[in-house]
């Protein structure tokens, strides 16, 4: 019994790491621009495929350092794509209305998804494992090295982001612009620099998540971003959208809710609610959280001023 729970905790941490990494991208963009970046989930997919292409081009799959190298290059490439998407599709719409950039993001999501499809093909591809193989048994629970690596990579990236945002000069700029872009520009911070930086880091993290996710499941398809993106977005809201620690907490929490609910609901309800309701748990939690604590678990109270669309419509 104990080992079963431990096993599920480990599974939850693996899924949660991936959700958290993607959720960071949603939450950072939302925190600064109040924009739901629908293109983010497609950048996650793009990351997985670019990683795959790089591994093929460099001919390096298998070696542990190769994985790191592929991850870093993919981070940079997808980060640059993210920056260009913002400059092309969102920046011209800043200040027009709240809906326009959101729908522009949607258009970009369609563009990126289909670009991936045209380059990589419609059929799901078998994904090489960049992660070490092997298992270790801890108190009766079987943990694969893949799971350990995913968790470790996620934690390293999150700690890195936390240090970057809180301890560096550029991080201060990001926080200042997130707090209030106008005031930040009064003290000489160029909001565009900070926003570009966010659109570099967020998609970069999402791309790494894409590589981890595809390596874990061994397959990548051009449509895989949508559902994962929705879940990660749910995680971001769960933790309090706009809050970086919130996204991490939300990611792990959602991973746990999903894993445990999927495992235990059929048992508790006598098979009435089966594992096929997996996706419902995520959205039900989302609806409940929003009804009782709209700002999320760690989110600060957002003033009505920024929440209401008002003249935007």
């Amino acid at each position, binding site marked *: 019994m104990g080992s079963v729970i431990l096993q599920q905790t480990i599974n939850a941490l693996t899924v949660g790491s991936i959700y958290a990494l993607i959720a960071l991208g949603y939450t950072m963009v939302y925190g600064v621009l109040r924009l739901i970046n629908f293109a983010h989930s497609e950048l996650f997919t793009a990351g997985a495929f670019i990683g795959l292409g790089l591994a093929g081009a460099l001919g390096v799959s298998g070696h542990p350092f190769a994985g790191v190298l592929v991850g870093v290059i993919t981070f940079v490439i997808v980060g640059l794509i993210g920056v260009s998407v913002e400059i092309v599709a969102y920046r011209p719409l800043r200040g027009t*209305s709240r*809906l*326009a950039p959101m729908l522009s993001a949607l258009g970009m*999501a369609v563009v990126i998804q289909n670009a991936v499809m045209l380059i990589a093909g419609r059929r799901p591809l078998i994904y090489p494992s960049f992660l070490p193989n092997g298992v270790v048994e801890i108190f009766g629970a079987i943990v694969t090295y893949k799971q350990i690596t995913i968790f470790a990579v996620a934690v390293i990236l999150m700690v890195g982001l936390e240090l970057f945002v809180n301890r560096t000069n550029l991080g201060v700029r990001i926080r200042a612009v997130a707090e209030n872009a106008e005031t930040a520009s009064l003290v000489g911070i160029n909001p565009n620099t900070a926003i570009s930086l966010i659109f570099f880091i967020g998609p970069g993290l999402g791309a790494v998540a894409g590589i981890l996710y595809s390596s874990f499941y061994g397959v990548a398809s051009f449509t895989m971003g949508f559902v994962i993106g929705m879940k990660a977005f749910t995680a971001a809201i769960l933790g309090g959208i706009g809050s970086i620690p919130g996204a991490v907490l939300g990611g792990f929490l959602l991973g746990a809710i999903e894993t445990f609910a999927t495992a235990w609901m059929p048992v508790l309800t006598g098979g009435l609610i089966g594992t096929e309701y997996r996706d*419902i748990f995520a*959205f039900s939690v989302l609806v409940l959280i929003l009804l009782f604590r*709209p700002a999320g678990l760690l989110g600060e109270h957002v003033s009505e001023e920024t929440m209401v669309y008002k003249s935007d*419509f």
Partner: protein
Amino acid sequence: MSAKKPWCTRVTSDAKTTHIPWLGAAVLLLLPVAVLILGQFLPTYPLRVLDMILLYAILGLGLNIVVGYAGLLDLGFVAFYAIGAYSWALLASGQFDIHLPFWLVLIIGAGLAGIAGILLGIPVLRLRGDYLAIVTLGFGEIIRVLMNNLDGLTNGPQGIARIDEAHLFGWTLSTPLDFLYLLVGLLIIAFLFVWRIEGSALGTALSAVREDQDAARGCGIDTTRVKLVAFCTSAMIGGAGGVVFAAMQRFVSPESFTFWESLVIVLVIVVGGLGNPFGAILGATLLILIPEMLRAWADYRLLLYGIALVLIILSRPRGLLPRAYGPSWLMRRLGGGR
């Protein structure tokens, strides 16, 4: 709408201008007549496309009440559409061997969607802005997952096939041309309905809620009730659209009711112009026609569609037809009134 407690006293009244703007009315009537005449000459496939345009225009008009007039972003509109579609699929097919007449299911479907709208509205309408958008999104997904999994009721992912042919007062609806007549009729009703809302006390209350909710409440507008009415009427139009969709396809499956569908309907009204009934029609025309015209590019179709969407939004972020240029404006211009 009850006489006892008005939402808001009418500030502007156009009761003085009693003459009917005949020219404006004629121009408005010309459009459906032109569509029907065009329908006589079109082959089957383009007729189907025309039917889809009209259907999306109806859905757009429905969603416009909530998004365009009340200023509440609803990303789960497809749920109401799905409820309507499944009403026809379940009440007029071999699934449970129930075969109700079309007009009755049209009412039931719209009614059920309306009830769902109220049930969703009661808890969520105290949320504002993005949070409301996200909850409605979650609701839409929950409805879709339910339809995917309640195998006993909805037949799961396989969907429900062999749905009855629709009959309306002895008239069989089978060809795309038959549905063109039905859809034109429904579009006219929906159009007039939405246009009337715009000029009514409810419309005034809705725009007050949109512009400033707190000030609206200060004026004595029962904002929760106004929003509920908007949610309910919009859901009813969505439900009716769903019934027609199911009757037209004679097959429904959860595939047709994804989040993407909700987004297309939002796009219809944003591209066309929020809060403008003409906008919904123009938006539906563009959003259905563009992918059809891109069919020749096969695999590149959706890529080009995405690029077209981004370009349209970049060039006209507030939509092609602004709010002020609605049917009332047309009437004023052509009727020679004020």
